[in-house]
């Protein structure tokens, strides 16, 4: 028993356990549920019924209002032929999906999900560079699309990969620039510092200094750029049914296709998590510190719930935007980035700098 507790106290062991819990208990289920929710919610938006046919024959044809489609989709992709097209670069083709997958997953490594209990933090690691790590990881995500496009030996896939890489590389610039203001306000790039900075208040205990209040323009810029970075509508030029079919993952089937799809939804969750962490107080619940007698475990639990609810809300919001806004043409995507987001982001940095200068 003592040995077991001793092992559990090793930071590396704790980190590995946290990775498992966060991936398999939080992120993967949420992303999987979102694949179904996307279909059901879009149906509700468009006055349709949505998927509801998958059933269990032995259980009185139990349908669960379409919930079984998750299992049906998973099983289907598991048993489908894993096809590699002729002339494809087998190595690149095989590893490409997992690049995107890993990059989407790695976002969660530095996200705090709740406040610490004693020495135990609900965060895998609080790296010093903080968000610079996120920028690096999202850059790695480009490799997944580029390798898939280049390795598929398909012109559609190559075009899709080219578009995706150009779009993602451009929008990384705006992600960085939009967050400069946030770094200036909270004087750090480290996640824990930014999150704790949002737990301070203006006018005594009146208004929490949430990122969305200190940097409203940065919020819009970051959210837009992040949607573009995850290649979801309205910025889904890398896929286009009428022009290049599914784009860079056109040639994929079976589990590798599922990996691409799941990576997309994990990235979606990742965007929500980042938005909550940077602009909506992270796990901090405003004014909760006024309740001084609250036990720490309860506070952490409430904080975790707040974080999850906000994350879920932003996932929903992204889906809602995806089913509301028509798609941008590829040149429009690039024009929006370089001609509009870039000047606004730079202006935001300058104005923020002035305000900070005057306030000090």
């Amino acid at each position, binding site marked *: 028993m003592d040995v077991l507790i001793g092992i559990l106290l090793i930071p590396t062991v704790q980190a590995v356990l946290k990775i498992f819990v966060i991936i398999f208990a939080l992120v993967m289920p949420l992303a999987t549920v979102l694949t179904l929710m996307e279909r059901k*919610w879009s*149906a*509700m*938006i*468009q*006055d*349709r*019924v949505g998927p*509801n046919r998958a059933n269990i024959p032995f259980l009185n044809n139990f349908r669960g209002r379409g919930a079984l489609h998750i299992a049906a989709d998973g099983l289907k992709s598991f048993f489908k032929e894993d096809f590699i097209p002729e002339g494809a670069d087998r190595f690149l083709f095989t590893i490409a999906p997992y690049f995107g997958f890993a990059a989407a997953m790695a976002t969660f490594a530095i996200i705090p999900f709740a406040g610490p209990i004693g020495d135990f933090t609900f965060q895998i690691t609080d790296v010093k560079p903080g968000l610079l790590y996120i920028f690096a990881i999202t850059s790695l995500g480009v490799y997944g699309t580029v390798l898939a496009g280049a390795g598929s030996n398909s012109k559609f896939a190559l075009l899709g990969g080219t578009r995706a890489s150009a779009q993602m590389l451009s929008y990384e610039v705006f992600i960085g620039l939009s967050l400069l203001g946030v770094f200036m306000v909270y004087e750090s790039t480290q996640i824990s510092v930014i999150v704790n900075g949002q737990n301070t208040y203006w006018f005594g205990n009146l208004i929490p200094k949430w990122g969305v209040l200190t940097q409203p323009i940065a919020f*819009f810029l970051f959210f837009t750029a992040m949607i573009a970075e995850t290649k979801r509508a309205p910025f889904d030029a890398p896929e286009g049914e009428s022009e290049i079919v599914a784009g860079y993952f056109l040639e994929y089937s079976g589990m590798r296709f599922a990996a691409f799809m799941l990576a997309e939804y994990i990235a979606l969750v990742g965007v929500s998590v980042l938005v909550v962490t940077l602009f909506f107080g992270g796990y901090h619940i405003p004014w909760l510190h006024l309740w001084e007698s609250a036990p720490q475990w309860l506070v952490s639990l409430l904080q975790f719930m707040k974080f999850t609810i906000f994350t879920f809300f932003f996932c929903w919001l992204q889906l*809602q*935007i995806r*089913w*509301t*806004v028509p798609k941008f043409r590829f040149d429009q995507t690039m024009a*929006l980035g370089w001609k*509009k987001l870039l000047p606004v982001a730079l202006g935001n940095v300058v104005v923020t700098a002035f305000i900070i200068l005057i306030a000090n």
Partner: protein
Amino acid sequence: MELKVKTVKRVDGFQEALYLPAIFNGLKLTVQHFFRNLLGAKDVVTIQYPEEQRPVSPRWRGRHRLTRREDGFLKCVACYMCETICPAQCIHIDAGDHPDFSIEKYPVVFDIDELRCVFCGLCVEACPKQAIRMDTGVIAMAYSSRKRFDYTRDLLKDTYTPNQRTKYTNIPLPKTEDEALPNSRGIPSS
């Protein structure tokens, strides 16, 4: 000839360039639909086919049935009218002597090949005894073998059940067989 040109004014300007007002308007609409349908699918008009079926009019021609007398015998007197008029030649009748002398004949075999049937309703019109009707309301028959589409006399023998699929229509449907007795094209007499 001069071409008619309609100039559509392009809305340019700061608001359009911002995108945000338009996106918020769109979001307002989709969110409204989302929440209205989240609480009970109010705008959804889909009919869930096998469980829910579209209403049919009382004169709608579905699968055939052979009506019966009060004593349970078939009304059919094996006069071959339907077999003769059938354009698809899908009806096959073999007549036999009826035990009741006043009735004369009854069908020993009455087969309809539902795969050949074109559902024209001429057999119903031709029948002098209201013995064959197409008011079962059965839209589709689906079997895995062709054999099963050969409906025999005993399969066609049926008592009247009023059509239940009236959810979306307000046409009053006949409740009893007497009410449902059709005139020449199967329209209820009442």
